[in-house]
């Protein structure tokens, strides 16, 4: 909790109402601090909290005793201990995650994202920077601009930060020497120009002694610029730039308490909104007008970027979560293929071709990332060839989504970034972990210009001529589980009933269509994707398609399921325990895998993710192959 600045105390004693009225008009600035391990970042933040009286006496007592126990400053107060929260960090003496701190000045309230300087924690810095208007880069006056300083500048700029403070810290250790400061400024200027950072100021400080932190220090009479706090108090906010841009409001939730009210709730990403405004609903493109901006305390005439509102529309247009309400004359685009910068944040590396959940604004889609065009070395900014992206790697790649999304390019020269419709996260479909974040550059032209050819003989016609309901019957299970055997029997039984079928068998497909693919995880994903596409074409032609592939990953089976029309995908889990399949070992593969001659063998050194809700579950320890085939045929015939 916050205590007031000394100057406020008097007013609070005299007239707290007047003081509170002043507080209400405060603006909010969010910034991040970044620096190397020993730049004294935590000490500087601790100093800001301490000097703006954000620390209570009981916390100060605890700090004094902690300083003696864990501190690195001898008998002096170690301000870093104020901000190093988790016990694991205390033991290691470093900050390991993003922490948020709060303090205020007479003009502004500040939220500080305190982010670590270690190389392996790029993830945390990008996270902290994503919500910040400004970055404070710490540099040790004795060491100057380091590789880490350049890396942090690059990362902050990557997520759209336009304003930088180079805080040249530990000036006390170089005798407050102007030449040392000037040399560092010159060094940084060259780098800033190179990567296109236009707005930056350098401030010489001492976090330990407080010089130029709150107010200007007598120790550096040669410095005529603002103190750190003075600068933070006056730097322009991104909010003003956001409000000046065209209206974008992602619809978060449709508010429908009864038949007479249909409101669209969301936070305005940019622009302004009010009754009568001409708007376009994306991606449908329908035009309408805003009827009312509804709040609990009455209707608003006007709402601006940053506000969370509920609006009603003049016409009954289709509009749901994920749609975007936009300025009628200047709407964003929709597309399904993009180029993007991706920051990988998980231990498991990117699998090109695998489907990930992509969340952008209120839109949730499946996205596939292609093999990266290049990876960026964050230290040298060189472009490197890359097959994939590992933890903390940054690369540029093409992304395809399974349906069109409304988007805007993330970074735009000369104004604030389009965070709401340009920034996205990728989520692993199996573990639900957030594995990456990204910034969209632009839509690929092929996605804008390639329209599907309309066909006069429809898939319904194909099916009607054959007198059957098409299907993709997807057999999955361990190697040797009995997939091919059962699928073969099913096809024979269907043929006997005059059904038009086709069996796609894993081994056969690998001799032709997929003979360029191996057995790495990425190749297995591509194998399944191609089979899925072929199966879809055959289903479009009216066939009942049977497939027999191990298809070990849930995410890929789900991907194929989503390619097919509702009800046309029938997943059949041929459930044979590993021990049983290994005992049968028809092809002798298990023996080879156990001997280490076969790598990435499902069940041995590569996982099999069993289906959670297959349409048909066959326990081969209970049913014979023939009984199993009868069961599948019976279920298929019963489909309506």
């Amino acid at each position, binding site marked *: 909790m916050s205590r007031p600045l000394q100057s406020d105390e008097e007013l609070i004693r005299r007239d707290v109402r007047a003081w509170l009225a002043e507080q209400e008009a405060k603006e909010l600035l969010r910034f991040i601090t970044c620096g190397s391990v020993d730049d004294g970042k935590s000490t500087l933040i601790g100093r800001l909290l301490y000097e703006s009286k954000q620390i209570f006496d009981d916390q100060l007592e605890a700090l004094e005793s902690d300083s003696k126990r864990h501190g690195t400053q001898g008998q002096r107060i170690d301000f870093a201990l104020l901000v190093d929260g988790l016990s694991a960090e205390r033991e290691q003496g470093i900050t390991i995650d993003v922490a948020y701190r709060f303090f205020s000045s007479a003009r502004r*309230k500040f939220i500080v994202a305190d982010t670590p300087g270690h190389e392996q924690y790029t993830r945390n810095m990008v996270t902290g920077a994503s919500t910040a208007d400004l970055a404070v880069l710490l540099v040790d006056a004795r060491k100057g601009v380091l590789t880490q300083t350049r890396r942090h500048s690059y990362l902050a700029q990557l997520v759209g930060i336009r304003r930088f403070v180079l805080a040249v810290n530990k000036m006390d250790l170089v005798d407050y020497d102007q030449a040392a400061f000037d040399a560092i400024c010159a060094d940084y200027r060259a780098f800033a120009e190179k990567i296109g950072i236009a707005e930056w100021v350098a401030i010489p400080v001492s976090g330990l002694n407080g010089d130029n932190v709150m107010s200007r220090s007598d120790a550096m009479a040669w410095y005529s610029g603002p103190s750190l706090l003075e600068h933070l108090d006056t730097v322009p906010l991104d909010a003003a730039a956001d409000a000046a841009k065209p209206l974008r409001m992602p619809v978060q939730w449709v508010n429908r308490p009864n038949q007479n009210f249909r409101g669209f709730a969301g936070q305005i990403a940019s622009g302004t909104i009010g009754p009568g405004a001409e708007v376009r609903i994306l991606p449908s493109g329908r035009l309408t007008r805003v009827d009312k901006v509804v709040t609990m305390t009455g209707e608003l005439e006007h709402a601006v970027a940053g506000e*969370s509102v509920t609006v009603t529309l003049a016409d009954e247009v289709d509009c749901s979560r994920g749609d975007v309400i936009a300025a009628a004359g200047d709407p964003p685009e929709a597309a399904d293929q993009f180029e993007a910068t991706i920051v990988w944040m998980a231990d498991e590396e990117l699998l090109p071709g695998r489907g990930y959940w992509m969340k952008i604004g209120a839109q949730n889609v499946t996205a596939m990332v292609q093999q990266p065009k290049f990876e960026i070395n964050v230290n040298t900014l060189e472009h490197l060839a890359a097959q994939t992206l590992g933890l903390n790697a940054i690369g540029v790649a093409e992304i395809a989504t399974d349906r069109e999304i409304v988007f805007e390019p993330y970074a735009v020269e000369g104004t604030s970034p389009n965070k709401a419709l340009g920034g996205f*996260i990728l989520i692993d479909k199996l573990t639900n972990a957030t594995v990456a974040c990204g910034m969209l550059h632009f839509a690929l032209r092929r996605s804008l210009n390639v329209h599907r050819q309309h066909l006069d003989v429809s898939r319904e016609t194909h099916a009607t001529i054959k007198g059957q309901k098409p299907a993709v019957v997807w057999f999955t299970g361990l190697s040797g589980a009995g997939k091919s055997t059962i699928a073969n029997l099913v096809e024979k039984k269907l043929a006997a009933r005059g059904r038009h079928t086709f069996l796609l068998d894993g081994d056969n497909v690998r001799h032709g269509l997929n003979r360029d693919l191996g057995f790495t995880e990425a190749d297995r994903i591509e194998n399944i994707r191609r089979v899925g596409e072929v199966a879809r074409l055959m289903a479009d032609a009216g066939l009942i398609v049977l497939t027999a592939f191990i298809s070990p990953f849930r995410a890929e089976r789900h991907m194929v399921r989503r390619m097919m029309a509702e009800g046309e995908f029938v997943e059949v889990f041929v459930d044979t325990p590993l021990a049983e399949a290994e005992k049968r070992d028809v092809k002798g593969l298990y023996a080879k895998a156990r001997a280490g001659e076969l790598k990435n063998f499902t069940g041995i050194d590569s996982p099999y993710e069993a289906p959670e809700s297959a349409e048909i579950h066959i326990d081969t320890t209970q049913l014979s192959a023939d009984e199993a085939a009868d069961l599948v045929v019976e279920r298929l015939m019963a489909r309506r």
Partner: protein
Amino acid sequence: MRSLTHLDRLEAESIHILRETVAEADKPVMLYSIGKDSAVMLHLAKKAFFPSPLPFPLLHVDTTWKFRDMYALRDKVAADPAIQLIVYKNPEAESKGINPFDHGPIHTDMWKTEGLKQALDTYGFDAAFGGARRDEEKSRAKERVFSFRDRNHRWDPKRQRPELWSLYNVRKAKGESIRVFPLSNWTELDVWQYILKEKIEIVPLYFAAERPTVERDGLLLMIDDERFPMNGETAVMRKVRFRTLGCYPLSGAVESEAATVEEIVAEMLLTKTSERQGRAIDRDGGGASMEKKKQEGYF
């Protein structure tokens, strides 16, 4: 053009968080502790979903030892037809008669920590709103707005999901859950300012009044009902108020003259002890106490 104040921004962010949870979670619930932070959170929820009724119930994990004034406000809030309130009491704690006088830390553990886990499991809630703020305590400062919990309700500070922009990952497997903190970026002063600005009703115990008290272990305790065992002490009428509210035998009062929100703010800004200090719960186990409790499933 209107420019937004810091309170406007905090309100908009909290409403965004509330709506995002309702849009993506299967069965959300709001933890309602009857304190001032709960009051603010509830007010924000009403605003977020207006004119719809609250699209989730409130859950009060009761310990049977709250102040009478708290129960009164709770029942008043629940009388609103747009609000559904669930009161949960850990049946084991109830049958064993667990209380703060005889059972020490077990009281909080069984009624609150265990009670909460049981309630979430019993009703199958997969997302629970809590009123915690990052400025309260050091381990909270590092917790995400959407804080993932495993099947055993445990928090793993080393495996938190990155949280970028205002994009929240609400996905989880069956049995796992998410604690959502819409007030993460509020400070105590923000909460008071907002209560004042929005005229939000809070429990009268926050305001100074003459109340019967005894001094015990350095805490001023209020004798709220006849269950309070007097160890030869006599109750003294003191003008006191409470900075945080919990079980009455565990909540320390402070002597005060502050009878309005403005006076509370003035007093708070000019005093020299932090908010959680009046609460006995954080002190056992040294500095890492709250972090440990959270890993075990405490909210």
